[in-house]
């Protein structure tokens, strides 16, 4: 593999599961070597199926997948030697100790003897499991199990590490710790990480590039800043004291839409949202216009666009609608019904 070659390249992957469920519908991703790439999307978007194909577990109906310079469909054995996989479900043997799990994993990659023992000690130390290494995995906490899973994926020093929803099911404290760990991994020389997540905050924080996945294909891709930047401007949220009636509502929307640099005005009950090139500068105009319409204001907030906004723009629905899972520490704006958010797309 030349340094400039991508570590992962998937082209036009399609896969339909028995029963007609179309999991992938033209999935395309390219991950540059040595970077952290995030696949972001709700449950069922096709992230895990993509990972299963790239890690040689599943075969696509059509398309190509090249991982670490090897064709995953024609030479799965070569790909397996080059990758580490941390799947959604733990997969560690609960009856065996952490150390035994790691030793077996190493042996499957052909590691033996003192070299393997050293590597296992090093990983136990690194993932803060040195003391627990001799205990059965079933006695571990969720965070410890997850750290062991990551250690299992690293035993043989892979070129590409797949992390499929690494923090799902972890409590906030363990999640933060895992984020720090992944951040450190990303600094490891040459390691490429492909991460899937349905936490917006996680992708924003960890990944250098993000692909937003919806219904089996990538709907947007770029750095977190690029994606947010494409929204051109800040979100302005206004909470009114009372919900205006239909006529007033239309008047308010029209009045605000007349300002230069203010777009995508949406009103849902007492909640008014708009997008502005320069949020803080737009606030006085917005407030003045509302006063003229006789609408009393309870609060105003201006926010830089979040990935949630990006998701809404590309997938056509709020992230929280597509996925009932919690959106991390970042407050997710309440879902806006499509009928009143005509300008949102």
């Amino acid at each position, binding site marked *: 593999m030349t340094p400039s070659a991508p570590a992962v390249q998937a082209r036009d992957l399609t896969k339909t599961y028995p029963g007609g469920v179309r999991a992938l519908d033209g999935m395309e991703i390219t991950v540059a070597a040595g970077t952290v790439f995030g696949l972001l999307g709700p449950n069922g978007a096709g992230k895990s199926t993509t990972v299963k194909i790239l890690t040689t*577990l*599943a075969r696509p109906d059509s398309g190509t997948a090249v991982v670490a310079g090897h064709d995953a469909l024609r030479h799965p054995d070569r790909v397996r030697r080059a990758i580490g996989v941390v*799947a959604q*479900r*733990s997969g*560690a*043997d609960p009856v065996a100790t952490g150390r035994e799990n790691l030793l077996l994993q190493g*042996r499957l*990659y052909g590691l033996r003897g003192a070299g393997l023992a050293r590597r296992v000690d090093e990983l136990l130390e690194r993932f803060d499991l040195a003391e627990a290494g001799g205990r*059965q995995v079933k006695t571990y906490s969720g965070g410890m199990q997850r750290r062991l899973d990551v250690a299992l994926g690293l035993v043989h020093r892979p070129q590409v590490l797949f992390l499929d929803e690494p923090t799902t099911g972890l409590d906030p404290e363990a999640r933060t710790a895992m984020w720090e760990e992944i951040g450190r991994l990303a600094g490891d020389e040459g390691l490429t990480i492909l991460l899937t997540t349905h936490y917006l905050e996680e992708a924003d924080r960890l990944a250098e590039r993000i692909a937003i996945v919806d219904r089996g294909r990538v709907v947007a891709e770029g750095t977190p800043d690029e994606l947010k930047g494409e929204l051109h401007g800040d979100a302005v949220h206004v909470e009114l004291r009372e919900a205006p009636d239909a006529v007033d509502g239309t008047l308010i929307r029209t009045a605000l839409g007349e300002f230069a640099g203010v777009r995508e005005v949406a009103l849902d009950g007492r909640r008014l949202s708009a997008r502005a090139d320069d949020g803080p500068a737009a606030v006085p105009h917005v407030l003045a216009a509302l006063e003229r319409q006789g609408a009393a204001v309870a609060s105003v907030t201006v926010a830089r666009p979040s990935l949630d906004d990006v998701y809404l723009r590309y997938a056509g629905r709020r992230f929280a609608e597509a996925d009932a899972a919690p959106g991390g520490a970042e407050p997710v704006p309440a879902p806006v019904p499509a009928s009143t958010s005509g300008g949102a797309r």
Partner: protein
Amino acid sequence: MSTTLNQTWFMTQRQLTAILRQPAYLVITLIQPVIWLFLFGSLFRKVVELPGFGTGSYLDYLVPGVVVMSAVSSNMWAGMGTLEEIERGTLNRFLTTPVSRAALMNANVVQQGISTAIQSVVIVLLGKIGGADYPGGIGGLLILVVASIVLGTVFGACSNALGMLVRQRESIIGINSFLLLPLTFLSSAFMAPALMPSWMRHVADFNPINWALVAGRSAMSADPDWGDVLSRGGALLALGVAAVWLSTLSFRSYQKSV
């Protein structure tokens, strides 16, 4: 090839360690045969007095029956373990490593074989302590143990196939409870064939449990009928190969369904 052998041993070791660390499981698999041995042994002690039974001590007759029945009853649950490994994600973890696929399959067979061998030897020894006589000597006992291992492989492989294809505990539990006793009673495990109703005797001729019993008992007798041993043993072996092949197919179908 040597890699596959090495890996088979690593995976077998893992499974054996897991069994040893679940003492409850270990105790139950060993106590159950003991209960059968002494319960059936006491209950049916006088059955040998029936004209035509053909043996003087019922315990002598019962030991192979319990060895074979235990081999079936412990191996037919193998699919539960496989199912658990699938649900926990352990199988997928192994499948993303370069481990030989044959090693994954072989480890099941080898582990089950070792477990069955140990269980069978324990039952034979318990029988000896209880006063059973084995006129066929070590050679005869060895053939009984091998026959029970092969029979166990048949049921273990089918159970694994079921676990991978159906992926439901209920199916395995249902089929097992449905099969174990009828299959055992439709064999010469507890009753001499001469005293079985003729239709049962004919059904038993097609019952692999009975093949293991005929081969084992004949080899254990003072004057073995090697024709019986070879024909039943051969049929059993062929069935074992077919069952392992079936479970390999189901493994492939599992990989397609991932």
